[in-house]
């Protein structure tokens, strides 16, 4: 039903604006009457405060919040629904001796105080506290012996006021002359989420309003196809299953911009113009359908088959019409690569600079401009990162780089590296210094630029598709109940918060707001319990895993905020009514009171089981993918509950829970070890004594002593079943796989060949082996991987050793490809801002002196190799640009690579195999004696004064004037030497042909030269080097011809 939009060629962008733009619009069937129901999928939710259209009989016209829900119907119409009559509120516990009369006093006091503190913005409000009630609820924190307590529920006029009220109450409010301090409850939850929880609306879910219950807006405030008002009472939220488990045909617009930077500078919006914007609009459906590809260009541009080229004379026109393009195509999601931190801020700043006033209205609201704000995002997993966040009302900004950063650990996050990883596709990378040249050229060069730009807009879409990101994020929103945009812009905790509130409120609990205390650096005890017996195991090693270990511990022992018994209360319970955990904390048993967290976990894992069952039955691949996304989201959610209770800077850390969980885990691992080693003994009729060689967080490695994978599997299955009986339900020990062979290097560092069936191994499984770290050169990755493959797959330690030796020897003989030696670091700030000298920053400075036009600038990655340098040079002085090294034959510091790059990883691999004393031979053996010491050919130092004379190719003696190749002593070896040169030429010719044709394939052009300068590409340096090598080899060969 969705097919490509027919857009014929337009000679100018202006013409397109007049006659082509409307074709992009969503297909709108007949305007629906008030008489039909409306259902839509929720995409984005926010709120505004305004004076709403008064309903009949309403007198007060004070400003109040209106929730805005944006979404898409099943027939592709966009919807904006205003939800009215929702007010923000929170709770405080009532004090001792609190009486009904105090309600009024408290409310007045708070109202007065808020009024006094209200800023100019809220001065229009006449009433700040709308309502004060007494409710009987339980605090979530600690076991309450089933008793409700009085709480004051405070309803305020606008959401911003909740935080102010909270501050006032925490700092003390004088009620009837008594200064009282309050701990607030539920005062820090985002207003929209608050409402969604109360209304049981989940992110990405389907909502319906019956006919007659909504009003169409006459005067629209947005660009949506439908704009409605309704009261929250009339909104129906559908549970996510069956028919309402579907996903609406969401529109996605992916874009990329090109800027003409001045030479030697990274473009800045103050000075450098936006010259092209490529956009691709698609619809998320069974198969992602591309509706249109378009490039807005500054100046004319030759046609691109299959794409709409829209040329403009001025940059102002270009920006303004792109904005119209976005509005007309009305995407639900805006995507691209690094758009949050680069493209959007750049466009908005540039439009401001040029005075394009209508530009920052990219959102769905007519009156509210798009804004960019700076945010800092810090997490334990990702560190602190300064980010920009562009808020485009009504549309989700889905920056693919951020999603990939969250979900995958990679060596590099450049679009090139990411496409290579996931799409198996290299992307041509045009250096920003060439972009201006292309722009200043002809129609043809601009067309070339436009086709790169288009590709960069298309790749994020393909990544979204390939990694099922849209589906997975929608499902995560549905499972956790938060809007999709929360998943992208907020941390992990909000997901648990949403689930916890939902469950707590349902059961009459209130969630306390704790001060964000500074982490007290209390160290968690590591999860490892069984010291690894390091070594190289050539017998099968079975792995027994606890399925969902932490969630099942929480369920088995009923660990929750609501079951935690405070030490002074413990005596009030009988010993069989509670569990004392290994850390000494006490929790009630589930028959006394069932905890909320175990309930949430049971539901999540139950839902996951269900999703997996449905997935098995489902035939339709799209629906299958949706279900797979759901089960994954459920699994991640279940596992994040434990983390939430342990996050010390989090919203509601509860160390008694998290510490109990880990200590139970440790006990269980230990217990498993004892069980296995007690049961599987020769005296019990087994062929061997089993040994547990290592136990990690949730798994135990057992060497049963048997010789085959099949036997190990049988015993593994049997042991898992037997030992599961020892534990409380739902804890379950599972047999998953056998490692054979298995190389155990250290805690959390091992590698093994992974078998799940006895016939064929599945993969090489590694843990904790440095192949992804960027400050390692690629050589390390190659050598480590190849050695492991030989040790594990070929089971040949001999060949692994000889390979390692060969690579070390090659390194010392300077035979290793420079791309394998390149290390890269990104230059985050100016050199002067770094406290101590860093290799890449010093190098960037050096390069700037050589050629300011191509030197790396802030934000670039600086690739370098370590060269020999002068004697006594500091490490940071020895870094050099790989291209410069290639061109000038600068000698590499090979010992640096052996000692600082290869030694540690290789030692780790071979030490368990050879024993600590024998590894050194790898670095000192006979193969390390041959070292090629190159003197710089570029004429540094003393070599400046040397005269190059031709030497005999056989014995290096200086040749006589008439001798061309060999001296008269070596005449007999002439043929042999000639053949040697031939072999070199042949090798280089093959490589030359393969790399340069590959570049043509990536660039997608046969008739024009490849411009790519992607230093992330594995063949970038080879490409350069082979040209030189081949030239040199050919020169030597030519000497033989006569």
């Amino acid at each position, binding site marked *: 039903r969705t097919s490509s939009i027919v857009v014929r060629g337009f000679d100018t962008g202006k013409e397109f604006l007049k006659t082509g733009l409307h074709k992009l619009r969503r297909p709108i069937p007949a305007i629906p009457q008030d008489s039909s129901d409306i259902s839509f999928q929720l995409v984005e939710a926010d709120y505004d405060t305004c004076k709403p259209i008064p309903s009949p009989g309403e007198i007060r016209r004070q400003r109040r919040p209106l929730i805005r829900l944006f979404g898409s119907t099943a027939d592709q119409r966009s919807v904006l629904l205003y939800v009215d009559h929702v007010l923000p509120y929170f709770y405080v516990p009532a004090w001792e001796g609190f009486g009904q009369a105090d309600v009024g006093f408290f409310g007045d006091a708070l109202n007065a105080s808020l009024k006094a503190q209200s800023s100019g913005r809220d001065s229009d409000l006449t009433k700040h506290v709308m309502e004060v009630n007494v409710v009987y609820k339980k605090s979530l924190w600690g076991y309450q012996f089933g008793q409700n307590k009085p709480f004051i529920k405070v309803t305020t006029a606008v959401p911003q006021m909740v935080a102010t009220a909270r501050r006032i109450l925490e700092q003390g409010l004088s009620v009837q002359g008594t200064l009282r301090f309050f701990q607030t409850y539920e005062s820090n939850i985002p207003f929209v989420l608050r409402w969604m929880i109360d209304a049981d609306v989940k992110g990405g879910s389907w909502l319906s309003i019956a006919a007659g219950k909504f009003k169409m807006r006459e005067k629209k405030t947005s660009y949506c196809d439908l704009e409605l008002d309704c009261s929250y009472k009339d909104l129906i939220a559908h549970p996510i299953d069956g028919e309402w488990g579907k996903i609406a045909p969401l529109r996605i617009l992916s874009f990329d911009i090109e800027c003409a930077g001045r030479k030697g500078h990274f473009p800045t919006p103050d000075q450098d113009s936006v010259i092209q914007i490529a956009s691709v609009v698609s619809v998320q459906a069974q198969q992602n359908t591309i509706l249109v590809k378009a490039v807005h260009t500054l100046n004319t541009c030759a046609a691109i088959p*299959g794409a709409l080229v829209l040329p403009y004379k001025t940059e102002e026109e270009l920006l303004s019409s792109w904005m119209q393009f976005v509005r007309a195509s009305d995407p639900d999601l805006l995507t691209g690569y690094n758009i949050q931190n680069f493209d959007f801020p750049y466009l908005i700043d540039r439009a401001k600079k040029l005075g394009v006033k209508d530009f920052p209205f990219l959102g769905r609201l007519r009156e509210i401009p798009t804004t960019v704000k700076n945010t800092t995002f810090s997490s334990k997993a990702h560190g602190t990162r300064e980010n920009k966040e562009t808020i485009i009302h009504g549309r989700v900004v889905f920056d693919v780089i951020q999603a990939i950063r969250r979900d995958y650990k990679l060596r590099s996050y450049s679009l090139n590296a990411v496409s290579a990883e996931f799409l198996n596709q290299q992307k041509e990378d045009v250096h920003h210094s060439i972009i201006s040249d292309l722009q200043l050229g002809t129609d043809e060069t601009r067309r070339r630029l436009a086709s790169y730009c288009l590709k960069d807009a298309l790749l994020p879409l393909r990544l979204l598709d390939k990694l099922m990101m849209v589906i997975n994020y929608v499902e995560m929103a549905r499972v956790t109940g938060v809007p999709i945009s929360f998943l992208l812009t907020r941390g992990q905790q909000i997901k648990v918060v949403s689930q916890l509130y939902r469950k707590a409120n349902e059961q009459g609990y209130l969630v306390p707001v704790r001060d964000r205390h500074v982490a007290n650096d209390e160290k968690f005890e590591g999860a490892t319990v069984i010291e690894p017996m390091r070594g190289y195991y050539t017998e099968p090693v079975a792995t027994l895993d606890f399925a969902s270990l932490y969630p099942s511990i929480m369920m088995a022992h009923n660990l929750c905020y609501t079951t935690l018994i405070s030490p002074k209360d413990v005596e009030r319970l009988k010993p069989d009514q509670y569990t004392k955990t290994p850390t000494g904390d006490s929790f009630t048993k589930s028959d006394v009171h069932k905890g909320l967290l175990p309930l949430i976990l049971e539901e999540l894992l139950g839902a996951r089981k269900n999703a997996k069952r449905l997935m098995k039955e489902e035939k339709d691949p799209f629906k299958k993918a949706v279900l797979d996304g759901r089960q994954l989201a459920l699994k991640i959610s279940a596992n994040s509950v434990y983390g939430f209770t342990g996050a010390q800077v989090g919203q509601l850390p509860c160390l008694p829970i998290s510490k109990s969980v880990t200590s139970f885990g440790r006990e269980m691992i230990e217990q498993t070890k004892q069980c296995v080693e007690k049961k599987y003994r020769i005296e019990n009729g087994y062929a061997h004594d089993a040994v547990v060689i290592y136990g990690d967080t949730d798994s135990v490695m057992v060497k049963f002593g048997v010789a085959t994978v099949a036997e190990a599997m049988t015993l593994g299955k049997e042991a898992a079943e037997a030992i599961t009986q020892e534990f409380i339900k739902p804890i379950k020990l599972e047999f998953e796989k056998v490692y054979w062979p298995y190389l155990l290097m250290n805690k959390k560092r091992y590698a093994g060949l992974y078998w799940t069936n006895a016939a064929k191994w599945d993969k090489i499984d590694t843990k904790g082996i440095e192949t992804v770290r960027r400050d390692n050169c690629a050589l390390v990755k190659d050598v480590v991987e190849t050695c492991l493959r030989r040790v594990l797959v070929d089971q040949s330690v001999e060949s692994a050793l000889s390979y390692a030796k060969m690579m070390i020897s090659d390194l010392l003989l300077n035979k290793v490809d420079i791309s394998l030696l390149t290390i890269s670091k990104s230059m985050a700030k100016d050199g002067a801002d770094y406290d101590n000298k860093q290799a890449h920053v010093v190098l960037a400075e050096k390069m700037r002196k050589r050629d300011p036009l191509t030197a790396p600038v802030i934000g670039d990655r600086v690739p370098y190799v370590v060269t020999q340098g002068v004697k006594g040079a500091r490490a940071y002085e020895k870094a050099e640009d790989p291209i410069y090294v290639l061109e000038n034959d600068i000698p590499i510091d090979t010992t640096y690579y052996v000692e600082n790059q290869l030694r540690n990883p290789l030692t780790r691999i071979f030490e368990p195999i050879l024993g600590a004393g024998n590894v050194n031979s790898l670095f000192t053996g006979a193969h390390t004696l041959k070292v090629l010491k190159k003197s710089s050919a570029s004429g540094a130092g003393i070599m400046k004064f040397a005269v190059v004379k031709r030497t005999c190719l056989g014995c290096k003696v200086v040749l006589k004037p008439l001798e061309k190749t060999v001296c008269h002593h070596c005449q007999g070896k002439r043929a042999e030497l000639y053949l040697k040169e031939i072999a070199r030429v042949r090798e280089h*010719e093959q490589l030359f042909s393969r790399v340069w044709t590959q570049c043509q394939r990536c660039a997608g052009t*046969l008739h024009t030269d490849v411009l790519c300068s992607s230093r992330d590409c594995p063949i970038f340096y080879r490409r350069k080097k082979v040209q030189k090598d081949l030239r040199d080899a050919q020169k030597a060969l030519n000497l033989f011809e006569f």
Partner: protein
Amino acid sequence: MSNPRTRSLPEELQTPPKPSEFSHLGNAAKRQKLIRQHSTSQLSPEEYARFRVRNKEFTQQFANIYFTRLQMLRQVIRESLAQQKHSVEVLEATNKLRKNEEKILIGTLYKEMKLKPCILDEYSKKLEGGGPVGPDFISSDDSLVLEDQFGRVPLLLLPESGTTVSDFTSGLVLGVQGRQRDDGYFEVVKVISPGLPPQPTINPKTEKRGYVAFVSGLDIGSPDYDPLPVQLMCDFLTGLLGATQEQSLASKVVRVILAGNSLYPLMKAGDFTDRTVMDGEGVEQGLKALDTILTQLCATVPVTLMSGERDPVNYALPQSELLLSLFPSARTFNTFGTATNPALMDIEGIKILGSSGQPLTDLMLYSSAPSPLVHLERTLRWRNIAPTAPDTLACYPFQAGEDDPFVINTTPHIYFASNQDRFESKVIQESSTSSSSSSASKAQTKICVLTIPSFSKTQTIVLVNLDTLAAHPVNFSPRVGATSPSNKE
């Protein structure tokens, strides 16, 4: 010795001698004196140097080759369309294309193939085992795009075009007739090849021109190298083998072309167990053996030694000539010469064009045809000796201003590819309404297209009659019934 090869001999020699003649056989005085004719070569200097590259530079990329090739062949296709008075407009460039209008586009084909080996995969080698490798890289997902300097258009071959994606390969210059759909695909109803180039006329000659013998793939130095058939072959060509019949035939061979892979360099283990290097010593011994064979041949018959994939010359096409100094003995004969690969040769006005087989072997990995000979004939009609170069076949990056030597400008009389699995040949005869001359005379084009089998695999050489252009395999397998080539024509 029972002679299984007789049946493959040219017909004129297969008629048994009359009984009366047998009676004279013992009489040496009456024996016919066999004299080998001397052949002359009439190559122009340009033709002679066609596949030589002087001053090799490697700073340039491959775009120039495609560009030059497109320029050269676009003109050919335009002219041929003009001659046929084709009514559909031929567009100057792909970016002039408008949707839903029937047009002809001319450009270079590029074939997207998911199975095509990719050097980048070697870097992202996954730790899982690799998939099975088939005999070629063709899959049903392959698709074609047409490119010129201005852009790319994806093609969809409609059934009425009578062709399928697997018929074609990257690097071809073709015209396509059809219209562009809304989604950007160009629906092709007709594919226009450049077609056979004009053929130079052969000057009539009174006496017979004789035979040329093609030998390829001696593979001297290979592990299962058998010197016996090679010696038999030498003895035959030099006239030392067989009775009068054979000797008479041998005497008519005016030139022997050793078409590539005369040597088989072995790789031996390097310093450490993982590396192999070309065994220099092995090559030297092989060269000596080859020199001996060449010396034997050159003493009686002119020999041209072509380079081939495994020979000790450069790897990328065109391969240069083997150094004369590598053959200290054979080089003393003026009957010995070396040639490039591909090579253009001339014997008594008969133009011979061919390669030592790499272009054909590579082509068969990326496109499909009923037989290797069909592949070979296609390259002639596409006017490109090596269409897959440079994409999958290594070749020298010719610079701007240099011609693409792989483009076939004139139809040779003999067109061959050597080092193949089996012998196949075909004589194409076509009368074309001559393109160049205004005269109404219909030019008769006659070409012998043939694949020459590898000698080490089949013990077979091929004789081509320079007058009739008929080709005949001759087998030297010393073991009766041993790997016999299919030499039925």
